[in-house]
């Protein structure tokens, strides 16, 4: 039995017909070809697959598509507008927040959710918000600095 469902992906309505046990991560990567969202552990421990569902961060490797109907999903591909990086993404570029880049999409999505809720977080609040996003390259310093810069310059809501 497949499941027909409608949801919004990065502002566009999608109708899909999928296996209900499919993970959101597989729907994005394998079915829809949106490979910006990464899989690094498949068990909700590393945060590389973080996306927003109705504005809240989820590990898309643990999120069954059965719960997707009627929601709005935002992935890393949804942040840039007309090819221009969002101010948060640009801050990651400017401050060296990405090294190998594999944790970066998930890291950026967690930061989007943080800044939407708390536009001027303290360093401790930033570090706490990233606790579910593992990075092996950066030691987190330049990631924290990226988010601090974005907070200083102000992030466009929803981007």
């Amino acid at each position, binding site marked *: 039995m497949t499941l027909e469902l409608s949801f919004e992906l990065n502002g566009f309505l999608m109708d899909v017909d999928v296996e209900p046990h499919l993970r959101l991560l597989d729907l994005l990567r394998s079915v829809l070809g949106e490979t910006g969202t990464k899989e690094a552990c498949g068990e909700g421990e590393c945060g590389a697959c973080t996306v927003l569902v109705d504005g809240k961060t989820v590990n898309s490797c643990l999120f069954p598509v059965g719960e997707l109907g009627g929601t709005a999903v935002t992935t890393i591909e949804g942040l840039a507008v007309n090819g221009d990086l969002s101010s948060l993404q640009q801050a990651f570029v400017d401050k060296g927040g*990405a090294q*190998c880049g594999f944790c970066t999409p998930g890291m950026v999505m967690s930061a989007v959710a943080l800044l939407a809720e708390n536009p001027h977080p303290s360093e401790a609040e930033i570090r706490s918000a990233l606790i579910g996003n593992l990075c092996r390259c950066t030691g987190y310093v330049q990631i924290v600095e990226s988010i601090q810069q974005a907070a200083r310059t102000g992030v466009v809501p929803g981007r």
Partner: protein
Amino acid sequence: MTGYSHIGTERPRPEAADKVGGKALYVSDISRPGMLHGKIKFSDHAHARIKSIDTTAALALPGVRVVITADDVPELRYGFMRDNVALKSGKVRQFRDEVAAVAAVSPEVAQQAVDLIQVDYEPLPGVFSVDEALEDGAPLVHTEDARGRPVRSNTMPLKCVHHSGDMTAAREASAFVSEGEYSVPRIQQACLGTAGCIAEFDLKGNLTVTAKTQIPFLAQRDFTSALTALGLEGRNARVVVPAVGGAFGSGLDTHGYEYIAILLAWKTGKPVKIQYTRTEEFSYLSPRQSAQFMIRQGCDEEGKLTFREIEVTQDNGAYGSWGATYPNVMLVAATSLYRVPVVSFDSTIVYTNNTYCQAMRGYGNPEVTWAIESSLDDLAEKAGIDPYEMRLINANEPGDLTPMGLDLKTCGLAECLETTAERLNWASNRGNGQKRRGVGMASFMNVGGGGKIYRSDGSGIILKLDDFGNVNVSYGGVEMGQGLHSALSLMVAESLGVHPESVFINQTDTATSPWDVGTHASRGAFMAGNAAIGAATKLRERIFAAAEDVYPAEVERNLTRLGEATGPDEYDFRSVSRDQFDLKDGWLIVPDAPDRPWLRVELGRLLRAIHFSEEGGKGTTFTEESFYEPPTDLPDWAKGYGNMSANYSFGVQGVEVEVDTDTGEVTILRLVAVTDIGRVLSLQALKGQMYGGIVQGVGYALYEEIKTEKGRILNPGFVDYKLPTAADVDFPIELEFVETNDPTGPFGAKGAGEPGIVPTAPAIANAVYDAVGVRIRDLPMTPEKVLTALQGQDI
């Protein structure tokens, strides 16, 4: 002031936008038309005889294209000791051993098929530690070597020793001696992007492997051997490297899964991808080697080191990878960190039935530095000398030739020590009676100008200028997050005289990039920069020579366009010769000429004028190659002698810690890292390398350990293998760079990839000792270990 336009700046990474936009493509993101997915059946035993393999049920599963065992394919032998094969027959020697593989339409179907493969084993007794492996009559992991000669012990046939000076006399002349045993665990590289590859053949038998590797050209050599074994001698093996999701040494060898993907692609005629899951990465990729050290160091009444004696034993696991040569790199610090006149170094590497180990950042140096720098604090205490003073007394100096024959042209160790002590307020914080807080420091030295362990330690580069003034760079090294492309784009821009935005670095591909030995040993930016300077120099000479002909006409065009006329007193632009030109940020200029807009020619316009020369036969394009081989020696490992690197980086990390005497928990309050890196190339990338290396060092020091039982890995995931999180490492890290401007470095730079991780653990251990008076000799310094040590003493 260096006078450089781009070197040393904070310019972002050239590939950063694609990474933060989710557009960078890693192996896991790439698929090919008709691509199949491969999965591997790994051993169920650490040591067993394979009695039979039944693949019937797996083959019958819909969606399965092929199931292979060693019986179905030619033997593909690999590993630098040629002791490993892609698919095992006869015997398995570790849980990582590959006994069968499946190619199917999806990873899920392939895994289902793997689960249906029935293997009947006869379990054999195994050896799971150095001690067990070296016991008389211990089971042998290998009974014959790659050439079929009988093997009589589990000790690997690798000689790496060093004995210099008169040890007996040096011991007798020592006023103080410290002696101790130190050990370090196996840890995982834990790249966020797991291992994977895609192998595909064309219809003539040429192979392309899209690989997560640090050694595209050594991999090409290995895969060419595989083609020969498949009867495809003379066919081309091409290695293409997409974005790499971290490597940290894990890409320094070719892997079983790559050969298996090749076999599956060869059998099916389809592209085959093998992508490890996280559990597979932990269980079936190879970790950093554990090591045990016995170390003795002595000093005279004044604290001057008199001798150093080190014996290291390492549990290599079941097969040889480059990781078995950690002692070659340990020699550097063992013989040469501080001025020590008499040195003895012995190493024993043993086969066991644990998963075999491989390279990880630092490659033996964090291990040996753990022993040296912990023991040095011990010695300082015995001698009644402050550990900082002890280090300063013995610091290497520029111009030193060390017992290993290392030629220290530059060395900023003393300055690094002084700055670290000053930043840590060493005098007031050290042993100040607040029993829970303490400060400690540790130094390091590391190869900074390549590390010669192959016959060539060279790198080639091609700079190709197009008609628009853009430079396409083909380099065989690998960007894996470390910032090679940041540093390289700045060095190309600076050496050629173009803007960094005009530098485009091509994907690394053995078909288009010149040979490079691999991206390891902190060598990437050092090698690439020296090669780039060579090619840029040639390009500039050719451009300036050709510009003599076209420059006057271009200036006249400028004058016409600008509506300007030159007066009689103006500069004679018609007779400018080649040695008067310069190229700066993409403009051909004449530095001696007055600063007039019409006297500058935009590089693209100049190149087009030369390319499309109206004089017959004069047109040309500009592509230059350069190969750089550093001025180093391949050491004689049996003597432990030879200047293996063109330069050596030095540095010191100092930490302030707080120890909870109720729980044993160590909290880092601040960390200072002062590093002699010769010259800052890309400041942003350099800082990233240091922060990242230091935090890996903190993980090594405090949390990380691969736990095994009888060869089986017990913590194959992030739930049970703890990596530092952003909240764990919330202490300030202060970086300072000492620029010693090494004559061998590109713009004076030394390699900077590994130093961050090297001295962190001993610096923390030394601070813990200062805080609570217990010395932990066995990493990681978990709360349990600290608490146990605290309970053993009265504080």
